[in-house]
């Protein structure tokens, strides 16, 4: 069995890792140059949960029944449950390798909390409630790590205006993670080691407008424009130490779950549904940015409502499924078609043509499990985030409705494979669908001697 180490950089785009836009990463850069490099095509929806799980199971979000962090049960307006590791019903790459007799080390892969027994060790992800919870397998690993590195930092609140504090906390968290990984790589037995760093996604969201000169609200700032380059340097230096500790024949994979690009604005999807006659509120909320609740909706006149996020989930007020449904089963397909067409025709506030993508789960997944939305919508090819709040005078918001955010997700992330034994040739490999990665890595580990 070949050894594989996966450096998972949440949201790392080809722009930084392949084109080296604005970053200086001598160690990672030279590894990537010596690797086979693909443009990793992420899943629908292009978000952290479910994307990492799609990568490590080879199953689509429909088959997994996971369409984001949160889901609703039929009949609810808002979310009713949050995803955790119990929702994983398919075999992961680490299960496969364990069953083949290998040892695995998992750190930070979402959603792995609560931790499950594995043939090796597991430290859970940013969805862990806190460092006081049991986040490690075997259980005593928690004490072992805490006695050396202090309480584990799982995430940082990045949607805040105090940017210096966000930066400091993100650097502190990632420094701790890199030290832990170096320790685990050296001290533990493993054949497959997967390390996902969430900090890079947070850095992108919090500082992208100070970094990317093509951002519509680009702002040069002596301190803040250095944050993303400095963060990449931190990763590069940490990876240099980790790489030194890896056995020489280790295959090194660098992967991200989706890309990132500038956020043009937020599209208040429920305000648009109101304007188009699909949604009716009993009265307009007094405060802009109010959460939509069951009590606010005039259900007798409502056909659909939506959720915000990096994509919009649209739900139809279907008779028999929703408590006050008005859309009959026989009308459902027509309503979906009409609404999809209307959503695709949405233009920007200045009449700019948008490339909107509207999908039905049944059209894109081989199987649709769990609690899917009726429609999934991406505005202007993801450039406009969806906002679910109401009370706005216009659907076009210059900023996110959930706190400052500079970036949205993008379809292409990265997937690179470096084999010191040369069984994988270097150079560009074209596009790699995220669903194919689990099989690719399994074959790499198990088929080649």
């Amino acid at each position: 069995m070949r050894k594989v180490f996966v450096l998972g950089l949440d949201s790392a785009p080809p722009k930084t890792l392949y084109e080296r836009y604005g970053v200086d990463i001598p160690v990672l850069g030279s590894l990537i140059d010596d690797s086979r490099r693909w443009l990793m095509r992420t899943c629908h929806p292009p978000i952290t949960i479910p994307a990492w799980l799609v990568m490590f199971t080879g199953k689509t979000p429909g088959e997994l029944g996971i369409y984001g962090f949160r889901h609703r049960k039929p009949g609810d307006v808002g979310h009713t449950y949050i995803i955790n590791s119990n929702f994983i019903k398919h075999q992961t790459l680490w299960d496969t390798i364990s069953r083949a007799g290998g040892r695995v080390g998992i750190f930070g892969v979402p959603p792995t909390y609560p931790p499950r027994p594995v043939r090796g060790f597991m430290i859970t992800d940013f969805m862990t409630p806190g460092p006081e919870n049991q986040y490690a397998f075997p259980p005593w690993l928690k004490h072992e790590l805490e006695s050396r590195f202090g309480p584990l930092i799982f995430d940082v609140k990045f949607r805040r205006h105090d940017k210096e504090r966000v930066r400091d906390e993100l650097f502190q968290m990632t420094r701790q993670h890199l030290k832990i990984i170096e320790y685990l790589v050296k001290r533990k037995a493993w054949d497959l080691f997967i390390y996902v760093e969430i900090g890079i996604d947070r850095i992108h969201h919090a500082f992208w407008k100070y970094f990317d000169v093509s951002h519509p609200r680009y702002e040069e700032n002596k301190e803040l424009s250095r944050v993303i380059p400095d963060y990449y340097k931190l990763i590069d230096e940490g990876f240099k130490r980790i790489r030194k500790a890896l056995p020489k024949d280790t295959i090194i994979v660098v992967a991200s779950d989706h890309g990132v690009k500038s956020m043009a604005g937020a599209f208040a999807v429920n305000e648009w549904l109101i304007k188009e006659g699909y949604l009716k509120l009993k009265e307009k909320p007094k405060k802009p940015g109010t959460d939509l609740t069951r009590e606010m909706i005039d259900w007798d006149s409502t056909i659909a409502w939506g959720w915000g996020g990096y994509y919009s989930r649209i739900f139809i007020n279907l008779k028999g499924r929703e408590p006050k449904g008005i859309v009959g089963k026989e009308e459902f397909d027509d309503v979906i078609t009409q609404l999809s067409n209307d959503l695709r025709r949405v233009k920007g506030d200045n009449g700019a043509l948008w490339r909107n993508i509207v999908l039905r789960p049944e059209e894109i997944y081989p199987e649709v499990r769990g609690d899917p939305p009726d429609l999934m919508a991406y505005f202007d090819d993801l450039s406009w985030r969806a906002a679910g709040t109401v009370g706005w005078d216009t659907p076009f918001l210059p900023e996110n409705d959930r706190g400052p955010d500079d970036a949205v997700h993008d379809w292409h992330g990265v997937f690179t494979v470096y084999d010191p034994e040369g069984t994988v040739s270097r150079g560009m490999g074209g596009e790699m669908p995220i669903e194919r990665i689990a099989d690719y890595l399994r074959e790499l580990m198990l088929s080649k001697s």
Partner: protein
Amino acid sequence: MGEETVSIEISRELYEKVKKYIEENGGFSSVREFVEFVINEVLSTEEEASAGYTKEEEEKVKERLRSLGYL
């Protein structure tokens, strides 16, 4: 009447390692007690995990996701 038991085999090398560990570190009176303890610890992870988030944990996670702007 004592608890019903079954026998399983482990490698001599591992057995000796555990025996030496117990002699040097104490805490357990026999290899059998040590092995049962470790297995119980490992299985408790699975039992806890099967329950998913407790109500309190889910609230904590929701609060965090809210502050991250996801909810």
